[in-house]
């Protein structure tokens, strides 16, 4: 049986029905409080020895103009490099010396800082973060250090073909052009950003309005007031995104090609996908599990049970924590014999899904979706972030029970509806080694 037939057959094979979710233990949902306008989410985990806190500020990509590409990241990195404590040292070093870590992520609408520490050290570490956020050091030396760190990080990410491809696809799929800019900017754009730009961005957008604090782990030493005090470091006020209208590119192709210093080609397809409050959220989780299993089976060496380079070289990811949500399918051409055929097969499977009524049980894919979701929601960082996402995008921060319930309720008809609704015409990114072209 060839690869295409194998994939098509997988759609109709009757799988052993297993009802998994009926007896699932309920996980306590996060608590949600509003303190002086700040949403504070808490997941108390008595078994944890750490406390993890995510602080979400409305100062992401969509607060930048197109010329300010990288400014949101530059401000966040400057905060991480701001000297705090006694003796003063950069926030990241001060936190590490107290037994913890701090990092940030720039999203289309937000910047989020994640700080983690041993439970007993958490109040002191949180105070260090609060001090840096309240008064970042926008001196030339600190901003220069921040720019250098970002430039180094960008150089590293340019070696990661999947990241290069996703950056291109996100730029195309973003409704607002600025929200689709690269998260860290580019070395050229950062070179044009100065301390005064960073200070002005901070003054304009680091406001208390819309701030969310999400904590998980051993929180005995952190009161709700302490957590909300993190937002208190910022001045009052709300902000709005910068509206940037850019005419959509017109063309006959939906392929984007980039060349980088990588050893093998990557093929990446992106489809639109529902947000977490949509009725298609559960079906899309199941659909992603189905695609992940199917293309992994296509790539895997027949008869082998351990994960191999081949099975790890392909994947399907439902990115529901980013706006707009998307479904991404990727193939790393360096690890399997015929990446074009595997990629084409994966896209064919998607088309078949949208056009054909599913035969047989989908219980095994529902189980896989539930397993993936549960297993990917075990670190404190993920748990704080998912609670924040669901708090923002749905009626409750209870991400785990919401997702498992949505998966359990999914029917084959739901899966097909989701496939028809979202999996039409993908945008495709090809990231190729320098010196090669599509025909290679």
């Amino acid at each position, binding site marked *: 049986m060839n690869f295409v037939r194998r994939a098509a057959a997988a759609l109709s094979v009757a799988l052993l029905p297993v009802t998994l979710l009926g007896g699932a233990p309920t996980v306590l949902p996060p608590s949600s409080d509003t303190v002086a306008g700040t949403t504070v989410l808490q997941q108390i985990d008595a078994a944890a020895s750490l406390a993890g806190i995510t602080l979400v500020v409305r100062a992401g990509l969509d607060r930048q103009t197109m010329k300010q590409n990288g400014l949101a990241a530059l401000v966040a990195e400057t905060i991480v490099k701001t000297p705090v404590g006694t003796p003063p040292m950069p926030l990241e070093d001060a936190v590490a010396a107290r037994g913890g870590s701090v990092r940030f992520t720039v999203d289309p609408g937000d910047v989020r800082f994640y700080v983690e520490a041993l439970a007993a050290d958490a109040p002191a570490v949180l105070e260090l973060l609060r001090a840096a956020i309240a008064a970042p050091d926008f001196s030339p030396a600190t901003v220069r250090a921040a720019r250098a760190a970002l430039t180094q990080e960008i150089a590293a990410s340019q070696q990661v073909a999947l990241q290069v491809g996703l950056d291109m696809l996100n730029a195309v799929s973003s409704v607002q052009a600025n929200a689709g800019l690269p998260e860290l900017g580019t070395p050229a754009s950062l070179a044009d950003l100065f301390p005064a730009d960073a200070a002005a961005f901070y003054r304009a957008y680091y406001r208390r309005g819309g701030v969310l604090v999400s904590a998980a782990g051993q929180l005995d030493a952190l009161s709700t007031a302490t957590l909300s005090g993190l937002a208190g470091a910022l001045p009052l006020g709300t902000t709005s995104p910068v509206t940037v209208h850019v005419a959509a590119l017109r063309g006959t192709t939906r392929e984007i090609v980039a060349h980088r210093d990588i050893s093998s080609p990557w093929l990446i397809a992106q489809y639109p996908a529902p947000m977490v409050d949509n009725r298609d959220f559960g079906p899309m989780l199941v659909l992603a599990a189905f695609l992940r299993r199917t293309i992994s089976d296509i790539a895997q060496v027949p008869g082998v049970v351990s994960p191999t380079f081949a099975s790890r070289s392909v994947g399907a990811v439902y990115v529901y924590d980013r706006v707009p949500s998307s479904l991404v399918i990727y193939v790393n051409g360096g690890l399997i014999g015929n990446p074009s055929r595997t990629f084409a097969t994966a896209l064919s499977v998607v088309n078949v899904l949208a056009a054909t009524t599913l035969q047989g049980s989908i219980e095994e894919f529902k189980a*896989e979706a539930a397993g993936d979701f549960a297993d990917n929601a075990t670190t404190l960082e993920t748990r704080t972030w998912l609670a924040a996402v669901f708090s923002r995008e749905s009626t409750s921060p209870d991400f785990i029970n919401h997702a498992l319930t949505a998966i359990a309720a999914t029917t084959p008809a739901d899966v097909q509806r989701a496939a028809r609704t979202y999996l039409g015409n993908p945008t495709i990114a090809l990231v190729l080694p320098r010196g090669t072209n599509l025909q290679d």
Partner: protein
Amino acid sequence: MSVRGLLFSAALVAAWSLPAGNATAESALQQSGALPHGGAYVIDPDTTVASAAIGLWFRAPGAGYDDSTPGIAELAATAAAVAPLASGKSLFALVHSVGGELNVEVYPDIVGIATVVPASAARRVVAAITAAYYAPSVDEVAVKTARANAAVLGVQQRYEADATLHDLLFKQIFATGPAHYPPLPVSVAEITSISTAQIGAFAKRAFRSENSFLALSGNVDASSLAAVTDGGGPGRMDPPYDSTPAASPASATTSALIGGIGLAWIGPPITDEKASTALDFIADYLFREETGVVTRELDQSASDAAVVGQFITLHDPGVMVVTIGGDHADQARDRVLGALLAMRTPMDAQTFNAAREAFLYHVASDTQTPQERADNLGWYDVEGDPGYAPGIVDGTYGRSVRSLDPAYVADVVKHYLATPVVVNMQAKESSQ
């Protein structure tokens, strides 16, 4: 009543319903005891996550009981996972059908079967994993799958400098014993030379219930233990399968598909908790990804050499291993040796205190998921010191870290990390 109090009450209620009555509470959250039909268990519950990690660990010599069949433990462990159970479905298939993952982890002296599954499936998987191993039904079909699996993993490993260097370093520093041989068969001839009968006999001997340790972590409670219906009855776990260090280990140069440099030093046994912890601390301080001193130096110099360093805690003795891949490996090796030389002088108090706090945090951060905790509990139990598992509440590891001081760490460097055994792996010229 506090949340902790509620959990403690729940744990007591759960323990009351155990099929075997000798559960002992090691802490408010953790329970351990004997399994109903032989073997031991620990439960490390966390009801705030929706998954459960279930690990089954054994003491077993990777190269067979007379060291004449390298790879037999790998073949037996995989064959048992893919052999059909009474239900007709194998453990491997069952775990995947419930949305979980299964990994067979074979080391020179121990075997671990690690699964992570949705919490709702924990009981079924506990039943299946113990049935698959306590009463292995290894047949030709299962062995054929295990051989194919080993062959592919063997080819794959040739492209993994870190794993290949590990095996080569162990071969140099251990004269005899299972650690002298690679856990994965290195050739098809080796794989096919081991018969189904040999594999079946090995599985029956190695995977006895009394030679096992079941580690449960995550959203799981003692009621899952009732699902264990197989086992040979009470008995003792095998003694540890230690290897004998070479009297004068020689360095070596070899050719391979990819290049790299490996360094290794014989360390203390697991029972020397303080020295073992000091070596963990040194590896963390120098080589941890992103934060290690050597790692940061390499990052700042824009070197594309990659250094991985860790102390491997084994029953007796442990081994410090540093592997270097990428370009400019020679310069990276010099940085590694220079950093170790510098650590012979005690660190200043401020630097040391910050590094020790960071290390305590790293240990906690690396043991926060059910899978990580179950792996640690399993590994440290079968290596002979369950109370020393890092990241475990009320364990001895945290106390060992806090007992370290700059002078002691410097002494450990001088005592254990003098001249390393070196393996230079030179990349073969490729025609393509």
